[in-house]
């Protein structure tokens, strides 16, 4: 469903993502992990067509994302990390706009909007301006917009940030149901517990380079210790600095 070959993004002398090779099958819930500044958001933005790779290629459902961006984007749903929405539109109006942009037929669009607003408990607030929405509610609206055109691949950048536990749970259920239909979810997160419980496969990126990819079991085998939690694996692969931190903190006391 989604594959990248030697995908690279450079900003001058800084390499944000380097030679990234990914292969993701239909129906997979793929977790993309990495410390701050590792290149997660840059990768997602390249895959959804917001950034142009410096080199390498990416294909989605057999379509070259670089060569045919519009064709690829029609199959993609995207939820950014901090979704900036149009403040002076109501949620319903924003979803209508989004549906039109993705060429959803008006009657089908309206039916889906009603379903999605109900699904996200936003029915009562559907006509409120987005300026009055909390961060979590905005996150729900942007997920609804991403689902509206029935995409084949859903990209989510830190989707659970700002969500209350109930909504986070609801989002997990939605994503799992989405994958059961043979569609793919690609999401980045800092919350390793969520990734551990939800994802069929994981990739860990550090300093722009892929350091590990596979199921949780694969990753455990890679670090050579069974029964380890994802957090331990993550820290091991990305380089733990617990001791350094303690030393620095002790230094501050003096």
């Amino acid at each position: 469903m989604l594959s990248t070959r030697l995908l690279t993004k450079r900003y001058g002398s800084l390499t944000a993502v380097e030679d990234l090779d990914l292969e993701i099958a239909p129906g997979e819930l793929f977790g993309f992990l990495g410390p701050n500044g590792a290149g997660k958001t840059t990768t997602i933005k390249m895959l959804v067509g917001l950034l142009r790779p410096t080199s390498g290629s990416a294909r989605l459902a057999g379509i070259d994302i670089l060569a045919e961006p519009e064709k690829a984007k029609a199959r993609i749903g995207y939820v950014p990390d901090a979704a900036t929405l149009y403040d002076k539109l109501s949620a319903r109006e924003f979803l209508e706009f989004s549906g039109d942009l993705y060429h959803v037929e008006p009657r089908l669009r309206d039916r889906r909007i009603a379903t999605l607003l109900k699904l996200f408990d936003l029915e009562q607030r559907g006509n409120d301006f987005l300026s009055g929405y909390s961060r979590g509610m905005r996150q729900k609206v942007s997920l609804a917009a991403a689902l509206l055109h029935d995409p084949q691949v859903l990209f989510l950048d830190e989707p659970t940030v700002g969500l209350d536990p109930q909504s986070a749970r609801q989002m997990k259920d939605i994503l799992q149901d989405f994958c059961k239909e043979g569609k793919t979810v690609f999401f980045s997160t800092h919350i390793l517990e969520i990734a551990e419980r939800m994802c069929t496969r994981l990739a860990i990126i550090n300093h722009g380079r892929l350091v590990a990819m596979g199921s949780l079991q694969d990753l455990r085998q890679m670090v050579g210790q069974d029964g380890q939690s994802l957090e331990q694996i993550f820290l091991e692969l990305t380089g733990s600095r617990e001791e350094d931190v303690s030393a620095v903190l002790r230094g501050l006391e003096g």
Partner: protein
Amino acid sequence: MFSGLMSGIDVGLLLWRAQLRMFVNQTLRSGKPGRIVATIIGAAIIVLAWGWEALITTIGVEAARRFHAQVDVAHLLSLAFLGYTAVLVFSSLIFSLNALLLNPDLDLLLAAPRPVASILAGRMVLQVLRLFLLSLLFTGPALLVLAFANHNPLIVIVFCALYLLYPVFVVVIISLMSLLLVRVIPAGRGREILTLFGVILAVGINLLNFLFNPALRDSGFARRSGPPSLPDIPGASAPWLPSGWAGRSAAAALGGDWGSAVGWALILLLVSIVIFAFGTALSGRLYLAGWIQAVPPRRRTLAARGPRRRGSIPLLNPVLASIVIKDWRMRTRDLAQLLRFAMPVVFLFVIFGLRFPRLLSSVQGLGAGPAAAMLGLVPAWILLFSLSISLGLSAVSLEGKSIWVYAASPNTTIRFLEGKCWSAALPTGVLVALVAVIGEILIRPGLTWAATAVLVAVAQAASVTTLMVGIGAVFARFDWTDARRMMHPAGVFIGMGLFALITGASALLLAISLALAGATHFPLVTTWLAAVTVSVGGAVAVAALGLLIGNERLRGLELG
């Protein structure tokens, strides 16, 4: 109280250094060639303006010497300081309310282990220093010329002292007023209230200027009888007003009366110190008393009256229609955006509406013909100038940080620009056509001339607005949080220049057609229609070019 005052000055200087550092980092030390070049060009323009100001002042000084003009210098300067007070009130109000309602840095500063009063006083000091620098920027060369002409460098020193002291009482009073004002401003409406203040001030000044400035009280196109005179406020130089102290001190310095100059300046200094010290203490108490900041704004919801409007426009592609409707909603629901629409119409009313009876009697005698038809387009062109700049140039930037919504969708950038052209050109075209039709109905130049003139106006509205959308795309800003910063100054400058070129060329072509008909005995209709065709065709070609350049910029855009 004295330690609070000194601590306030200390914080103010700290903030001033930080601001200077930010300015240098964003310009000369940015490492971006474009910014460095822009800074150098800006500096060169300032130097040129200074040279011009010095020249004008020198001519003024020479003229005053030769003709021995009888002017009450103290009153004139007091009047100038009183006028400056209006600028101070407005800028201080915006500065204070911005700091209290919108800028997050005040919380950061207040978390520092310094008294709250000293932080607030520090911001006042910062504002005074900014105003001082602005005063010097505007009048520095004139002061140097005056010092040189009077062989007295002390003039510069006295004026500098007055520039530094005079804003203090206004800044302090307005800061205190702002602290009281935020208590009654609904939470979450700060930006709108600030915009409203700006509008009231702009319209108010224009209206007052129009109604009370004798220089503007003429009868339509008729010549004024007698020389123009400046508006006067007799109380401006009163000895109990700060403007009077400053004006008298400045006038005494120019006249070489140093005793009076220092005396009046000392009064200003003492009053400024007392007001600053009391203001500092009081502002700390007022701030700590708090106000309802955390209460979320009232829920704003769509009116539930009648059936809701659906997002479609007949004959327009659904994607384009959705962009037009979305932009219309954004522009009409946000006060700052709505003003981009409303202000040009309001100013058109101030310019033409208030003089309507006189103007009507002047134009009705023009008779029929193309020249009269062209004259009828003047209000439409003024409106087109404002609307094409405000709506066209800002159309792409209007997306702001939400641009990702479109960028992630399966549509091309040219489709996006098409939508933006419709979104800006539709309202502009309708309003311009309306004003052009009204103008032609009032002037009655004959049906053919009026119809073709309106056609020219509508075609120009569509093409010029399209061109502005293209320029707006080249200079688009998506990271703005304040609607006033949506448009790039270079884009505005280029847009204005191109507007002048296109409409100027169009007017010239139409004028040439009249001259050509007279010289060659061709039928006037033929040459006129030829000029109209070439004018509209040229504008459309330039607009298409602008759009292509804009599209190239958007195609290369990366939302990192």
